[in-house]
């Protein structure tokens, strides 16, 4: 099935566009589906989806007008705003960046230690300087949708190195304990952030042991190495992703006991019967007022227990040429062509 020619040149389409041509490592070409009747026909006769191997080259193409639309790193937004031929839209993304703690590690079992990690870092400063303001600080993953909103009364964990030191002292933290952070270099933002994390953790007495590796190796350490009874081979893991704004229950697959990696995305094997119970209750009812209350309770517990050190929810930055009309930012960054049938270009 996967080897059939059909898989590389599909002929049917249920949408406004249909497959036309695919040049590997170059581009995918789609054309207007003339037989589409479920809505208005597409305005553009074709769209090329180009492969961009290097963000810098992609931006050069954007600036030169060779491509019309691209999602760029938040760090590029400011510079591109000054370009008169381009429009920059920055919208909140459904993702959250965080450190997952391996709660199987005896030295990370005490919640005061985990809280100290978050007090130790200046998230506001990082968002301002590294992410150029293109992110919102969060203290929970329960951040949507609109009827849920972000619960009130969460501890904001404002930057307070002294508090972090105090918490570590109370928890009898051994400052010789190294904390292993495996990561994949090559992400501009993470590469800029990680040395700052390392420094700010060091200031309160936490030594970060950075171990760089490629993605398959990292996946192996976090997922494949995990068993039902033991989390993967890491102390903390810097992750960004998820689609948290669609429903508060999305968080379940990260914090429930049944979601222990490899069966789910609870990488650090955090377990709490009360959390499990509340997630179950939240799924058992459709009453929004009741659900809102349950998930608010959950957010408060998880904000205090800190199975993750929540960092922020970054924005998605879409940049397009002014000749492109009708582009609307998608709620999930990669779904840029969601309303492509409404697009048109001016000469």
């Amino acid at each position, binding site marked *: 099935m*996967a*080897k059939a020619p059909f*898989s*590389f040149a599909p002929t049917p389409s249920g949408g406004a566009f249909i497959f036309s041509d695919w*040049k*590997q*490592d*170059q*581009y995918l*070409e789609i054309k207007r589906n003339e037989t589409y009747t479920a809505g208005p026909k597409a305005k553009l006769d*074709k769209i*090329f989806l*180009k*492969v*961009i*191997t*290097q963000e*810098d*080259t992609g931006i*050069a*193409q954007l*600036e*030169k007008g*060779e491509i019309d639309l691209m999602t760029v790193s938040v760090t590029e937004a400011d510079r591109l705003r000054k370009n008169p031929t381009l429009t920059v839209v920055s919208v909140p993304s459904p993702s959250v960046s965080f450190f997952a703690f391996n709660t199987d590690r005896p030295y990370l079992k005490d919640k005061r230690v985990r809280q100290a990690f978050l007090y130790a870092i200046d998230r506001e400063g990082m968002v301002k300087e590294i992410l150029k303001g293109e992110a919102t600080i969060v203290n929970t993953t329960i951040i949507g949708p609109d009827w849920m909103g972000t619960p009130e009364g969460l501890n904001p964990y404002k930057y307070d190195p002294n508090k972090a030191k105090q918490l570590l002292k109370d928890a009898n933290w051994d400052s010789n304990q190294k904390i292993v952070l495996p990561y994949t270099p090559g992400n501009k933002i993470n590469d800029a952030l990680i040395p700052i994390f390392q420094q700010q953790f060091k200031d309160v007495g936490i030594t970060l042991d950075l171990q760089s*590796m*490629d*993605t*398959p*190796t*990292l*996946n*192996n*350490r*976090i*997922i*494949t190495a995990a068993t039902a009874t033991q989390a993967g081979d890491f102390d903390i893991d810097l*992750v960004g*992703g*998820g689609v948290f704004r669609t429903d508060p229950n999305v968080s379940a*697959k990260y914090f429930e006991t049944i*979601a222990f*990696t*490899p*069966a*789910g*995305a*609870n*990488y650090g094997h955090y377990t709490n019967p009360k959390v499990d119970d509340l997630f179950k209750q939240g799924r058992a009812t459709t009453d929004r007022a009741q659900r809102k209350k349950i998930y608010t309770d959950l957010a408060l517990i998880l904000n205090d227990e800190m199975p993750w050190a929540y960092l922020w929810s970054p924005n998605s930055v879409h940049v397009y040429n002014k000749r492109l009309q009708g582009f609307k930012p998608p709620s999930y960054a990669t779904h840029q062509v969601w309303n492509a049938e409404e697009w048109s270009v001016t000469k």
Partner: protein
Amino acid sequence: MGQYLLRRLAISIPVLIGITLATYIIVNLAPGDPVTALISPDAAASLGPDWIAQQREQLGLNKPLPVRYVIWVKEIARGNLGYSAQDRQPISKKIRERLWPTLRLMGTALLLALIISIPVGVLSALRQYSFLDYVVTIAGFAAISIPSFFLGLIAIYIFALKLGWLPTSGLSTVGKPNTIGDSLRHLILPAFVLGLAQAAPLIRYVRSSMLEVIRQDYVNVARAKGLRERAVIYRHALRNALIPLVTVVALTLPLLLGGTVIIEQIFQWPGMGTLAITAVKARDYPVIMAINLITALMIVTSNLIADILYAVIDPRIKYT
């Protein structure tokens, strides 16, 4: 000579087997596998271990390593490179699609490198310690020292973005009919950046080899015969000075098919380098092995070609 050739060809078979065996073991020892490499941790966790096990079985990854190697060798012997673990496309097709772009880029770059390096190297040697020689030396060291990705980005910035003379990247203008002129315009920037980087060390080779040759007695003899300086340099000195260059150039021949990762990535050139790096990142064992095999074949052959050419140009060397 014939016997020598046969012997060399016979030796290359165990060499190739050794290379493929070693690379097979190494790529398989790298942590991770094609299944987990292709999905995010988030997706892996949601799909669960059963799904991963099923995918691994589909790709034949559940068989022990020696069995997999034997199967691979059997298929290769029948001329079957296999299917990519990433997208299940036949590898022969993937490679065929990339061969011509790679050859075009690498060939042009090598040609440019030779066109630049031979005259510049000769001039620089003939006028040793002149102003020109110093300029060439400094420029050469700069070209060797500046990383090619930086040179590439600077070239895109100046010639594509600021001056607007050339396209930034790619094989051709997307959505326009494919013309030779358009392809050439796309070729200029990457070929020059690569050519300059390759020319720099070649200039040094030509210069030093020329310096050595023009001090030889037979060059003095040629002068003493009353030959004009041009004839002495071109007919007697240069031809001999280029002999060491043959080895150097022959050793760059595998690159003609192997491509170059960095320049291809920067200029979005869909060549073998890009194929190789995506295969490694995705732990696409069959593709990695196919590329390794081709590169190994190219290296073995170009070494052989270099040896043969040596005997052809330099009568002092004989193989028995």
